[in-house]
């Protein structure tokens, strides 16, 4: 049976935690813009931000995990789009309806990602949880699930000589 740590309530979360949690989402935009020609670059920045901040608190851990995970699909989709565009441009330059449909769908995915991220950043700044579809559930598991090493009592046990 899964066990979860209790969720912190907004009044228990410090301003620093809220800002670190919010930073996870906002930093993605800077990284996304910088990494646009090579979408996978922003993933590196996201992972670094995650490892730097995840120990700060479970609330921060949840939000930075959610921002990293939610970025994976859009990064992959953007990567495929860049590859497909270059391949077509240097190939027969036949931008098919399928390609155009994909490009528009990727645009919609990016806009949705940006919209949800801004909303989540605002929520994080208020000290609230906000769960994305799929990634919210996974991030909650990552941040709040009681791990095996957390079950072992931390206090020292005196034992007789061996």
């Amino acid at each position, binding site marked *: 049976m899964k066990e979860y740590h209790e969720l912190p309530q907004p009044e228990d979360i410090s301003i620093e935690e809220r800002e670190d949690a919010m930073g996870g989402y906002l930093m993605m935009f800077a990284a996304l813009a910088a990494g646009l020609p090579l979408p996978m670059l922003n993933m590196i920045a996201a992972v670094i931000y995650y490892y730097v901040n995840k120990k700060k608190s479970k609330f921060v851990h949840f939000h930075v995990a959610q921002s990293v995970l939610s970025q994976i699909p859009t990064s992959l989709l953007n990567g495929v789009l860049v590859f497909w565009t270059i391949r077509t441009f240097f190939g027969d330059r036949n931008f098919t309806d399928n390609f*155009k*449909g994909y490009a528009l769908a990727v645009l919609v*995915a990016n806009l949705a990602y940006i919209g949800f991220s801004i909303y989540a950043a605002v929520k994080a700044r208020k000290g609230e949880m906000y769960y994305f579809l799929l990634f919210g559930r996974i991030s909650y598991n990552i941040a709040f699930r009681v791990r095996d090493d957390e079950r072992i009592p931390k206090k020292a046990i005196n034992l007789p000589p061996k």
Partner: protein
Amino acid sequence: MKILRDSILLIGSFGLIWALFTYVPVFEDVDVGISMEQEEHLGKVIMETFYDSKTHQRIENNAADSALRKIATRLQTGLGLTEYDYNIILVKDESINAFTLPGGNIVVLTGLMEFAENPEEVASVLAHEMGHVEKRHVVDRLVAEFSLTVLFSVLTGGDGVLLQDILQTLLSQGFSRTQEEEADAYALDLLVKSSVSPRALASFFRRLNTKYGTADDQLEILLSHPAKNSRIKSSLEYKIPEEFEAKDFELDWEKVKASI
């Protein structure tokens, strides 16, 4: 289980949006940036360059030319209202090909007339070229190859070298596969409206494939109009309306060919 459900929901939504944007034509009515009047003017200057180059000998006033006119007139009647004033000319060249130039100008090579077994086959190729005209593929291609600035400079009295370059591009480069398929679909409808059997297009392409194989580089028309089996198949599968009745062109085709 909930994670699986969420994953399916996310992937499914993306797939649905992709399919929606693919099959709902978002880009079809995008303005190409050149008006009909400008295209007509562009066609005029390009045709002048074409005649001036003297590398192309125009065939006029013989049986082949009048046969081509007869075929073109039938198709234009089937076409009904159009913004184009068609100018279809026959040029002496052994290649089995036809070209679409801006402003409704279509060049048919004598090689095509000689290869065709009947006037219906010529009509099918001509209908296909008219499809490129009506769908404004030529302008699309010109805008893609040359910028709008370059094209406008031609319209306001561009230099001869540039015009030669544009003409060469139009004569040598093909359309995209999507454009070819659009022109095919247009041609099949137009053939039916003109009382010409739409199967003529398939039979023409099939004969080309049989005679020359699918080695596209052997034959110019295959290079510029790739006769893939899928295109032959879609021509063959085209549903002819029940009330359709083919009308003969009443041309002595052997005599027409002999006049070339």
